[in-house]
């Protein structure tokens, strides 16, 4: 029991039950005790208690077979307990030890290693519950990738288990993308989006007839520029007179609709002729323009525009 006395040294000695300096002690204490008394201490009894202790026998021998489980002070389980992010450092240390342990195992090239979806930074922060900086997480992922490169047949069980604990739930790379193909009637159906517009194109082999929302191309797009951009995928590959397109387009304005059709026709054309991909890529037809209108913010007149400055 640690007693709150002003003299720390005395307290320490008491705890150890060392009484080598008994002569000096009462003097100092008595001076101190005159000003402060404690309910737990009885002033008059002290000399007699000391006398009885000196007569007591020595402590029994320590029985190492039946050692007290309770340590003298509570020691944290993790050596990195007093660092800023102990759980993260534990993970790093564990992975580093694994890496060192299995450094001699043969590896494969990075491209041949099985594709793993590691935690994204935000997910990892949730997982460890600590604010891990991006850079440190990257170094952790580097170790994970090194461990992942161990030749798949020789991966030890503990490495496998450890790596799995860092995977995102619902393994995204397990889903196989189904390659869409032309259906039994020779139609290729594809969608495209641009701005607020969505276009669905059904492309069949034909003579170059185009119907947009049940109207002719001229009615749907009065500007020649819009017509050209809508059919750009067919035009730049010189396939305009080889396919018919039946198009439904909704939402947005005229330009957005035309460019949504561009994308949809490009994708539909790829179903018919996958070899055209490099050409279409170069023509900028299968590149998705994901830009949308930026939202308006409070305090702004538009998305970014600020109200005009007024003196008063």
């Amino acid at each position: 029991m640690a007693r709150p006395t002003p003299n720390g040294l005395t307290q320490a000695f008491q705890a150890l039950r060392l009484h080598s300096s008994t002569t000096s002690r009462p003097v100092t204490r008595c001076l101190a005790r005159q000003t402060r008394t404690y309910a737990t201490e009885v002033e008059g009894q002290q000399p007699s208690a000391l006398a009885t202790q000196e007569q007591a026998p020595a402590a029994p021998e320590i029985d190492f077979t039946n050692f007290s489980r309770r340590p003298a002070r509570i020691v944290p389980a993790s050596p990195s307990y007093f660092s800023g992010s102990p759980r993260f450092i534990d993970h790093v240390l564990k992975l580093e030890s694994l890496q060192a342990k299995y450094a001699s195992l043969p590896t494969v090239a990075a491209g041949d290693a099985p594709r793993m979806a590691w935690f994204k930074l935000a997910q990892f922060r949730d997982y460890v519950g600590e604010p891990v900086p991006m850079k440190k997480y990257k170094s952790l992922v580097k170790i994970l990738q090194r461990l992942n490169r161990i030749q798949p047949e020789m991966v030890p069980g503990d490495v496998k288990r450890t790596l799995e604990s860092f995977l995102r739930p619902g393994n995204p790379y397990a889903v196989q993308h189904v390659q869409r193909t032309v259906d039994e009637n020779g139609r290729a159906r594809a969608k495209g989006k641009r701005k607020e517009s969505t276009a669905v194109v059904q492309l069949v082999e034909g003579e170059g007839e185009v119907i947009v929302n049940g109207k002719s191309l001229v009615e749907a797009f009065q500007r020649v520029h819009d017509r050209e951009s809508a059919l750009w995928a067919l035009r730049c590959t010189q396939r305009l007179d080889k396919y018919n397109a039946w198009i439904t387009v909704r939402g947005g304005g005229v330009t957005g609709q035309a460019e949504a059709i561009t994308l949809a026709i490009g994708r539909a054309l790829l179903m018919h002729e996958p070899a055209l991909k490099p050409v279409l890529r170069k023509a900028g037809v299968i590149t998705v323009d994901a830009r949308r209108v930026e939202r308006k913010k409070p305090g702004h007149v538009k998305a970014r525009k600020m109200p005009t400055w007024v003196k008063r």
Partner: protein
Amino acid sequence: MASSWCWSCLSRLRATPTPRAILPPQSITPRITTASFHSSAVQYANPTKKKGALVAVKYRQGQTLRRKKKKTTERARPPAVGERKALRKRIVLSNPNALEVEGMQDLSSETMVDARLRGSVLGLPVPMLDQLRAVQAFKPKQGWSIFRRPGTVLRRDTLEMARLFEKISGEGDAAEKGKVVKKIVTGLKGSGKTVHLLQAMAMGFVKKWVVVTVPDARELVSGDTSYSPIEGTNPPQYVQPNAVSALLMRTVEANRQVLASLKVSQKHSALPSLKASSTLEDLAKLGFQDAAVAWPVFQALWTELTATAAAPGMEKDFKPRPPMLVTVDGIAHWMKESAYRAADYSPVHAHDLVFVKHFISLLQNGQASLKNGGMVLYATSTSNNPAIYTLDIALEQLAARQAGVSPSSPDYPAPEAYSGADARILELFKPTTGKEPQFELQTLGGLTRDEARGYLEYFARSGLLREEVNETWVGEKWSLSGGGIIGELEKLGRHVRSTAQTTPVLN
């Protein structure tokens, strides 16, 4: 308060400092300050206002900063009255900078039915241009001004029409003299409806028919020309004397040769001044001077032109009358209430205007009315087009009947209940009974690829298009023009390409 007069010298004390503007500038003349005789004026003077101090704002006076507006600089005089309109309505038929197309054939009775020439551009004969101008066959913004001389494409519809002209004129193998073909021409914007009418007029002139046209149906119902009720009609009918007079003028100007060769063969009690030996041209000219008799003159001219035999006692100079071509452009304007008002301020329906009614009735009784045969071509317009629900439904019904849908079948289009469909229009489009044949709906589509190629080659040969006209290029333009819509092809053909041209990427 002290008086402003000085008692001792009777001089006026100056309460305010005299303006110094009259003095010459200080730098030139040294300032000689003389002591004022009185000093009290200065003492009593109001404190001078500081420069730039705020002026007291009057009650309810605006505080906004007022800047002097820049004075508008003198501009050139505005064009004279009517000049702008003349410029807008001007029709230019030739461009001396365009190349002359070699080997271009003119429209004639042989070439217009020649199927081998399909897809080529036939020039309009130069002497005919005045006639076509007179019937206002050309419209501004049709792009005649980019070529050396006006010409039209011989497309499938044109060839079919030319064969009809031949039949009705009594030539060729299957001659059907006296037949009347009645058509309503529709189609997309830029599909060549008006030019189709122009081709019909040109063929009419070639075949020496009498061509009567209403170049813009809207002018008759927009309230621009005078109108007056006809007495004794119930419901009241209205006549538009000036419009009739203009029609007579157009008709005489364009068909002078034909009309001058025909003599009056009927008795016209409404026109006592008409001589028995006068020609139809003289008859029509009566209506020029006096708009009041224009309508009786028009009726008289019509009976003369549709007569199959002379009245008893007038057979001497009777010649058989030629077939007639009647064209109206922008028929939709005649399917609604006009801008005219009746005496009780209720709107006058277009069908209550006798002029309009006369032409509309040709759709229903054309065969009976045009006894010498002819053609009635009424075109809709898409550029100046009122939205008329009933007409849309009626045209759909017509198309459905032509496609073989029975009017009793559930697929037959019908106006929505409570849509307020115009009963007169539905009545007009009802299937005709008896001997009278039903009028047809002719929908103009795009050119075929071959026709489009011929048309675009014409651009290239005129020097407007500097590109190689080949199969793929034409196919591309054909698709871009919505399947060969000729107005769109024209836009693409005259479109000046920039130097940075896109080269097709191909592997």
